[in-house]
């Protein structure tokens, strides 16, 4: 393709549109961060703004000094995300190895067993009853196990990757007397690092962003993950506004900047991990959606 460096009107227009859309995607996040640094009095006077006159660290100070509930929920989220991601990735990787292992005669039948659950399941109500029956309510396991700990989509992603590895690898290891466990953990998993990273990030994001398990199975504030806490914060505040009429903002309602600060620290890990997310997840998603 001939590369022309000349700037034409059409090209300028393209640059303009692309930049504009990029700003639209980015600015709302910037707003959250700016508001979290804005002085409360300023917000009450002028509303949210990209260019506040008065900055303050008050919201973050309050958050870190006596965050109490926020700190606790944040910690819940971090723990659940870390434990969940590690477990989920292990489960997926192990199952994928067995499905890619050509000496397992029934591997395709078993793959079908997993695939069926992907397209067909009972839905919300049976799932809820099942969780009740298994005792997955009002405890941390309820946030960890249902819904997120294993996904057939990721299983097939990893299995397809493992299938591409040369079969002689497994054969020669077997001749040397290694069993499947050793082959999987010592040879296959290290070779599959890129796809395992993709899958781990999939699980990690799903755990970090999850509030479905919390809304369905947990009622104790001490166990809320931060996402659900944020959601409750808003709906409770609306509720209080309704009760107190136009006056609003009762003494114990969190201030506007404090709310935004909480939202900002919730976005934090995602922004930190963003370079990895882009690198691995995009690859995984493109494979998953284009190649089926």
């Amino acid at each position, binding site marked *: 393709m001939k590369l022309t*460096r000349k700037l034409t009107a*059409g090209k300028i227009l393209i640059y303009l549109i*692309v930049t504009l*859309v*990029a*700003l*639209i*995607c980015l600015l*709302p996040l910037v*707003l*959250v961060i700016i508001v979290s640094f804005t002085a409360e009095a300023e*917000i009450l006077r002028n*509303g*949210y*703004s990209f260019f506040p006159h008065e900055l303050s660290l008050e919201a973050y100070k309050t958050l870190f000094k006596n965050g109490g509930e926020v700190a606790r929920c944040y910690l819940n989220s971090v723990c659940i995300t870390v434990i969940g991601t590690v477990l989920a990735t292990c*489960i997926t990787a*192990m199952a994928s*190895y*067995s*499905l890619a*292992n050509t*000496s*397992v*005669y*029934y591997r395709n039948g078993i793959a079908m*067993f*997993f695939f069926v659950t992907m*397209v*067909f399941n*009972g*839905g*919300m*109500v*049976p*799932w*809820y*009853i*099942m969780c009740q029956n*298994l005792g997955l309510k009002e405890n941390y396991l309820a946030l960890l196990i249902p819904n997120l700990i*294993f996904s057939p989509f990721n299983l097939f992603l990893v299995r397809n990757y493992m299938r591409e590895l040369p079969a002689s690898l497994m054969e020669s290891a077997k001749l040397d007397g290694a069993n*499947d*466990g050793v082959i999987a953990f010592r040879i296959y998993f290290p070779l599959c690092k890129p796809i395992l990273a993709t899958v781990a990030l999939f699980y990690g994001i799903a755990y*970090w*962003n999850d*509030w*479905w398990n919390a*809304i369905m199975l947990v009622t104790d504030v001490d166990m809320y993950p931060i996402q659900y806490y*944020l*959601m409750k914060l808003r709906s409770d505040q609306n509720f209080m506004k309704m009760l107190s009429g136009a006056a609003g903002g009762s003494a114990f309602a969190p201030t506007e900047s404090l709310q*935004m600060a909480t939202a900002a620290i*919730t*976005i934090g890990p*995602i922004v930190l991990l*963003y370079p990895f997310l*882009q690198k691995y997840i995009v690859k995984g*998603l*493109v494979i998953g*959606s*284009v190649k*089926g």
Partner: protein
Amino acid sequence: MKKRSFIKDIMKNPVSYLMLLPAAIYSLLFGYCTIPYMVIAFQQFSYKKGIAGSKWVGLKNFEFFFKSKDATHVIFNTIRLNLLFITFTMICAVALAIMINEIQRKKFKKVAQSCYLLPYFLSWTIICYILNGIIGSKYGILNNILASVGMDKINFYVEAKYWTVILVVVKVWKDLGMQMVIYLATITGFDDELYGAAAIDGASRWQMCRYITIPMLMPTVIMLTIMAVGKVFYGDFGMIYALVGDNGMLYDATDVIDTYVFRTMRVIGSPSQAMAISLFQACMGFICVWGTNFIARKKFSEGALF
């Protein structure tokens, strides 16, 4: 390989089967074991009595849903919103992918892509805060602007009529980047020689786009659209519930089957009625998935899901 019995296979590969076990147990419990519970759609289910002890009521639960005035608008809303989401996200993503492809500065391309993708990784709760920052009635940016040009502030959270637009914009904003990446990957895969030949024939960039890129992108566009249409009966619960929540004033424009099922179960506390609606949804959904997959298989053998 010779056929062997399942037990023999397990004996031969004990470690492999052991490694399969956690995933298999999970799929069994949360996949297969949930299916029998679907019969509670025909019961007056109580958590205490279980399936065996609950009273059978025939089609009463279905009757209740379809006779209520909510049925039509909930179903209609789900389909309407989904079709709008699919159409607008697709158009914007394709347009953006083609434009990005025209840009030659690698750095610029990369930075722009990073910006587009960021919203995809945010949870709906965070987006709820962002949305409130923009259209909130008291402090929102949009209302500040309206006020500063002398117009009346709009209280978006009580006016259902704006919400179709709001939801579509938010959805496109969130999903645009990811879809764009898929289309861009497809475009980058096209053969460069085609463009070279076109350039020799004196085609302009616009003509190349019109007669090469767009026609060649069509199969991917149609395939992804067909797959999305297959899920047209499933509303985005996370999105609607996080953005609208229990705000009854907006239900006219925003209530979808999934949020309705959720409310029936958790607020009204009737799992059987919720299951009936959900079963109806699953059946319609199954027909849609099967139908779209049938079309996909006929038109593009590669694109079929199964």
